[in-house]
């Protein structure tokens, strides 16, 4: 920052200062030097690099003439580092009184003057060093966390309701990786609708986390309203397990399709009994044509910011209410059943925005607040549990987290595949697809050469047609001798999309 605007009026380039001194010399030696220098110019032009300085340094060390008439100025790339230390010029001036003794700087290690710019021959990053640097960064991060992070971190208990469907692998893998990054001891309670299935078990086995895979022996309903209530019951099931086993830690309701930040897990360590967070609602539609229309409409009117559910505080940081989801703008386009391809709306207050101290759920725990309802009473006799607030007698003692709800640390999203979608079991295509029919227009040498843009457009169409042809043929082949219960079809959505584009 010091040298940023060093356009000093008096700071002429070093060379411009010198001709004055050169003129002070006696004419014959001046002519001689300029002749020699001209010769060196020619030789340098022939050789391709400027060697004059080096030569002068070696042969005539006190003298130094610098002219900038060379055409081939380039960065002095020296592969070995000889220090081209050129001593200061003023020693030659005869008209001054005897100059002071040469300053020791010139004789010392560091000299004034032009130095070479040292570049090593292959200045590329060394991958081993990059790996070492990352190890260093990781270790420093760990140390930083120890020093400034949470003291006495409590374990985290994650409650996830899930069921086997097309997008389960998508969502669960994402959640799995997020949870594997959490630096605190973690227990994952996965409640699966329809009982424990091999699909889910296989997915969960990919993580190294301690998972408790709980069956919930009813099937997931198709209507979204029912599904919200159903999920609440599944979560209650998990909470009861926590209570039975007296698991200790902070309970986080991580739905498999939500997106969590790592700061979330640091922030929830601050909770005493029950905390509330701000959740960003990603209410969007699934089908592409609906998206296009929505984007048009959005650009016409000013897009409102992301809807957020969470605690509302007054200026002194106390909880005074809740921001809930306003479903009116989406009323006409809300999804009713799972996989119908339009926006899925959340409930008023999603479970994901709340965290609990697990001791809140225990039968007896010291310090358990009296505004907690006993878990055994909740949910029996057909009571509707909509949000964790129903677990409390008094909702005003909930702690707002994340800078009183100003920080959004997780996002709620529900994206499901079309209701008629199929997916291969365990996402393994076995036996492998066969190549059925070659496309009509492929870039074989004997095909007539296309204009570039035509070729690209056709290739794009080719891919679609190719795939759909493949699917159809494979499907037809398979259905003819298919004995398995789960058909190994590639999702027909691709073919449907291509059909839509063709139309």
């Amino acid at each position, binding site marked *: *920052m010091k040298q940023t605007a060093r356009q000093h009026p008096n700071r002429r*380039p070093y060379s411009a200062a010198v001709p004055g001194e050169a003129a002070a010399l006696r004419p014959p030696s001046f002519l001689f030097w300029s002749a020699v220098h001209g010769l060196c110019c020619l030789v340098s032009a022939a050789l391709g690099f400027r060697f004059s300085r080096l030569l002068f340094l070696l042969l005539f060390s006190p003298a130094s003439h610098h002219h900038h008439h060379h055409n081939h100025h380039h960065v002095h790339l020296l592969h070995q580092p000889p220090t081209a230390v050129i001593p200061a010029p003023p020693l030659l001036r005869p008209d001054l009184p005897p100059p002071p003794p040469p*300053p020791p700087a*010139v004789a010392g290690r560091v000299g004034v003057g032009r*130095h070479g710019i040292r570049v090593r021959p292959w200045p590329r990053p060394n991958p081993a060093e990059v790996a*070492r640097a990352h*190890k260093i960064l990781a*270790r420093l991060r760990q140390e930083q966390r120890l020093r400034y992070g949470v003291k006495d971190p409590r374990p985290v208990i994650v409650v996830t309701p899930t069921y086997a469907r097309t997008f389960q692998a998508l969502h669960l893998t994402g959640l799995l990786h997020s949870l594997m990054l959490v630096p605190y001891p973690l227990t994952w309670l996965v409640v699966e609708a329809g009982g424990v299935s091999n699909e889910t078990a296989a997915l969960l086995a990919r993580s190294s986390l301690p998972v408790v895979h709980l069956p919930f022996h009813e099937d997931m309903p198709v209507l979204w309203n029912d599904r919200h209530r159903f999920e609440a019951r599944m979560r209650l099931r998990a909470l009861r397990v926590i209570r039975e086993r007296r698991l200790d830690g902070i309970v986080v309701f991580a739905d498999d399709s939500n997106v969590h930040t790592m700061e979330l897990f640091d922030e929830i360590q601050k909770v005493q009994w029950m905390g509330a967070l701000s959740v960003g609602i990603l209410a969007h539609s699934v089908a592409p044509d609906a998206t296009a229309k929505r984007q048009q409409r959005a650009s016409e009117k000013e897009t409102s910011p992301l809807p957020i559910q969470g605690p509302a505080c007054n200026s002194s940081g106390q909880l005074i209410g809740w921001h809930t989801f306003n479903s009116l703008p989406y009323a006409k386009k809300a999804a009713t059943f799972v996989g119908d391809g339009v926006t899925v709306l959340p409930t008023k207050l999603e479970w994901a925005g709340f965290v609990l101290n697990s001791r809140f759920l225990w039968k007896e725990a010291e310090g358990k607040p009296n505004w907690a309802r006993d878990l055994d009473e909740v949910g029996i006799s057909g009571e509707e549990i909509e949000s964790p607030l129903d677990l409390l007698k008094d909702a005003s003692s909930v702690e707002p987290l994340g800078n009183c709800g100003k920080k959004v640390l997780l996002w709620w999203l529900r994206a499901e595949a079309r209701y008629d979608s199929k997916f291969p079991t365990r996402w393994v295509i076995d036996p492998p697809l066969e190549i059925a029919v070659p496309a009509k227009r492929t870039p074989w040498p004997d095909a007539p050469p296309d204009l570039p843009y035509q070729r690209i457009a056709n290739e794009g169409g080719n891919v679609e047609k190719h795939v759909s042809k493949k699917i159809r043929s494979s499907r037809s082949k398979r259905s003819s001798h298919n004995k398995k219960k789960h058909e190994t079809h590639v999702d027909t959505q691709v073919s449907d999309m291509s059909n839509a584009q063709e139309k």
Partner: protein
Amino acid sequence: MGSGTWILALLVLQSVFGGIYGLEQEVNHRTERISGSAGDVLEDDPVGRLKVFVYELPSKYNKKILHKDPRCLNHMFAAEIYMHRFLLSSPVRTLNPEEADWFYAPVYTTCELTPNGLPLPFKSPRMMRSAIELISTNWPYWNRTEGADHFFVVPHDFGACFHYQEEKAIERGILHLLKRATLVQTFGQRNHVCLKDGSITIPPYAPPQKMQTHLIPPDTPRSIFVYFRGLFYDVGNDPEGGYYARGARASVWENFKNNPLFDISTDHPTTYYEDMQRAVFCLCPLGWAPWSPRLVEAVVFGCIPVVIADDIVLPFADAIPWEEIGVFVAEEDVPQLDTILTSIPIEVILRKQRLLANPSMKQAMLFPQPAQPGDAFHQILNGLARKLPHDDGVYLKPSQKTLNWTAGPVGDLKPW
């Protein structure tokens, strides 16, 4: 009953001291005490150890200059102004010159600025000379020691050589009249004309409030490995490269511009201070002079300074063990900078971070207003106090006078 209360008192005292010791142990785990070659002197209190007499110079030497250009209060040479203000109200100041150990003449030699804000040092020798002539004629204290118990603050590029270009500065040398005085300067380089023995090197001025407002939470991960923002080639003055920074900055650029570990560029981001707090190493290469405010910024923001300046003398070198805090890379080793930095053992890096986290370290680099204990003002006074008592050679008999009042370039002799 008496012995019972004694035993109880002893037990209480033991637990109290044990508690304090335990607390100190915990603090030591987080930060380490910093002690340099002069010992554990960062937190010394200079009050009572020395007395400073401040000459009342006419305001043309200080206030009028500042009044003409108030930008002098914010640039990196502002230490001379703030030192004056600190001394005027400090308990070490004495109004009785007979009992003073040190004498201070407030001359703002670095306050004549170009429109761009860079100081022009051409009149500084004359200004300093004129001030010295004044104090030698109006007070007897200069003549009795020829300035050996006087100190001056000369924060310019090359200190009391009063030039921004190194060749010219070396040619001029330190102003002859100051040859016996103690110089408090930012420039420090071993075996250099412009650093004389006994000088006190200080950090350049960096605005403390501005840095304070850019602090980010300390648990933000340090994910940048090496960070640098600044020029690599000074296109206006040295387009080819090779003069500026002795080619070291250009070498850094040419070797590491494609290296993902090095976040280096010539940008001027608004998040410069925040980025330094997210970096592990901050490069502090020399420029036209070896020192720069980057060192101060790196220390304040906890980024390990990588000093690339041969033979540099860092601020308060006797009080702060810079080798243990920063990384020193020779200019000829710049092409191997990545190997050097990645092969530092992790315990060494952790220790450097712990030392940097010590608040007394950060405080020693700053010039806060009002002054706080342990800050750079106090370190300067501590340095001056460590030079006491003056040895007997300081006081000169008339036959021993060696100061030549007409030495130096002819242009300097003109009155100011």
